């Protein structure tokens, strides 16, 4: 039986707006096992990104808790280990424009003091097919190439789980397909868990489990 890697218990999150309190997440319960890929779909504004941020420790829930298995040392709150164990892939790539491909990937390792950063970065860049673009800056790369760099960056610290927030949202269909193939291929190969937030039913169906976020609650989709 697979080991539980991520567990979200009764997560609640609301935001204050001019019109009053907006309950975005009402009661989220989610368990993700080691090596499992899960997709979350939902309408725009349904709280998918907020959920991902709660799971990744970028945002604190109003109630409930998120537990992540970090390096098999038991379940630990992700807020204490931001960056460790969790790799983020964003819709807009979010690369540093002043750094080239190699430096962008190395950056995530440098921040956490991961050893052999350059060797790991070069290997990962090769594996995402950008070996010839090491010294190119984001402005010199296509959208698909930028997202490949972002994937390499998310993987350099050997995370146990990758949180991908609409990684194909800014890409054309064919490039999006390539990115999804790449992402699913790598996480399967490295036995990482993946939570993929997407609008695309087609991409969602390629994950092992599909969920739908509606009115602040997750349901099988």
């Amino acid at each position: 039986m697979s080991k539980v890697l991520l567990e979200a218990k009764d997560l609640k999150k609301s935001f204050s707006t001019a019109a009053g309190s907006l309950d975005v997440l009402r009661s989220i319960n989610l368990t993700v096992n080691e090596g499992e890929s899960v997709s979350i779909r939902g309408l725009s504004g349904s709280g998918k990104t907020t959920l991902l941020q709660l799971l990744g420790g970028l945002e604190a829930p109003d109630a409930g808790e998120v537990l992540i298995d970090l390096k098999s040392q038991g379940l630990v709150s992700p807020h204490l280990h931001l960056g460790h164990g969790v790799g983020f892939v964003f819709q807009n790539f979010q690369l540093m424009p002043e750094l080239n491909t190699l430096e962008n990937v190395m950056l995530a390792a440098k921040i956490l003091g991961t050893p052999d950063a350059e060797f790991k970065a070069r290997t990962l860049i090769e594996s995402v097919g950008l070996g010839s673009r090491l010294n190119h800056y984001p402005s010199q790369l296509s959208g698909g190439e930028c997202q490949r760099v972002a994937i390499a960056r998310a993987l350099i610290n050997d995370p146990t789980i990758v949180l991908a927030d609409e990684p194909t949202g800014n890409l054309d269909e064919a490039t999006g397909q390539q990115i999804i193939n790449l992402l699913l291929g790598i996480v399967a190969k490295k036995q990482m868990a993946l939570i993929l937030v997407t609008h695309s039913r087609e991409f969602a169906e390629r994950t092992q489990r599909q969920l739908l976020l509606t009115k602040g609650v997750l349901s099988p989709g």
Partner: protein
Amino acid sequence: MLWFLQIALRQLFQPGKRFPAFAIVSILGVALGVAALLVVQTVMNGFGEEHRLRIRESFGDCVVLTRTTITNPAELVKKLRKDDEVLNAAAFTEGPALSRHGQFSGVAFVRGIDLTVKEQPARPYIAAGSFDDLDDGRVILGYGLAKTLRVNIGDKIELWSPAMAELAEKGQAPLPAELEVCGIVRTGFTEVDDRAAIIPIRRFRELWAMGSQAHGITLRFKNPNDAPAIAARLNVGSPEMHFVPWQEIKKNFLEAIRFEKTMLFFLMFIITLVASFSIGSTLFSAVIRRTREVGVLVSMGARRWQIVALFGIQGLMIGLLGTLLGFALTGSILAARENILTIINKIFGDGDMVANVYQFSKVPLHYDSSDFIVAAGFTLLVTTLAGLVPAIWAASRKPSEAMRHV
């Protein structure tokens, strides 16, 4: 290299960009502020030093005075010369007299000097003739007095001392002393230049009928800057005498120069402050533009202090490079100061103000390392703070909020 240092340097000097406008304009702004501050300070120091030198050379490092005349000046001079700190001592006499040349006359303040002592006050400021030509039949006049009497080198003037007036009161008819002008001095001090008449002390005593007495003694010290301490020490045990160091002779004047320098420092510092505020606002807009990147860095595990350092370093770098460029600019401006002054004089048609007003052959300079240290310290502090304020703001934002920022 530390990652935040690498990004800070890249954000300042973006690779592939030929003209990093933000960095260059900010650094230039700081450099101009620093240069303005230091040029003014160095020239003011120069004027101060020049004036201090003139005071010493016109009046001596220290003047010894008594309530009456010094009855045995030779013995006192001998005693003072034995002191380790004293380079030289010379007795002098002084007093007012009436001077005349043809139809022109004026009150002269006559000083009798010891010709055996070469280093005499006002000697370096001989504008015409020669100090060495002075003898019992000759006189050296101040520039203003020579002008009043309409005399040149070689002309003869008549001098009436108070002793002659006393003789006249007794019914005698003394003849005035006839002296040939052998030199004209111009110290830059109006009170000296407009009244001074220098003659040998032997001749003075004769004209004033004062035997071997003297009115005072001028001293030269090995270290003139220590004059107040040396004067105080020499004064111990001689309460009837008053040792006046050169710093006291023109105290108000020196205080005015110092105050002027301090005021100018604050005025010029405002320029640096304005430059730093512009850096602060530019860095603020840069930080806002990069808010999403801040969120991403935090999502990768960056600590708050590292985000603060990332932007704080940019302010520090601008301050550091601006200060260094400001130093270089200061050196260049000061090296070309005469040419700059010539251009200014030409534009405003004021003639050579430095020579006419201050009697300096060129704009005086005095580099004071403490001015440079203070300017660098203030500039680095202000520019770093200008970078830190937006940096702290950026680091205090929640990563999720930062990443939503458009």
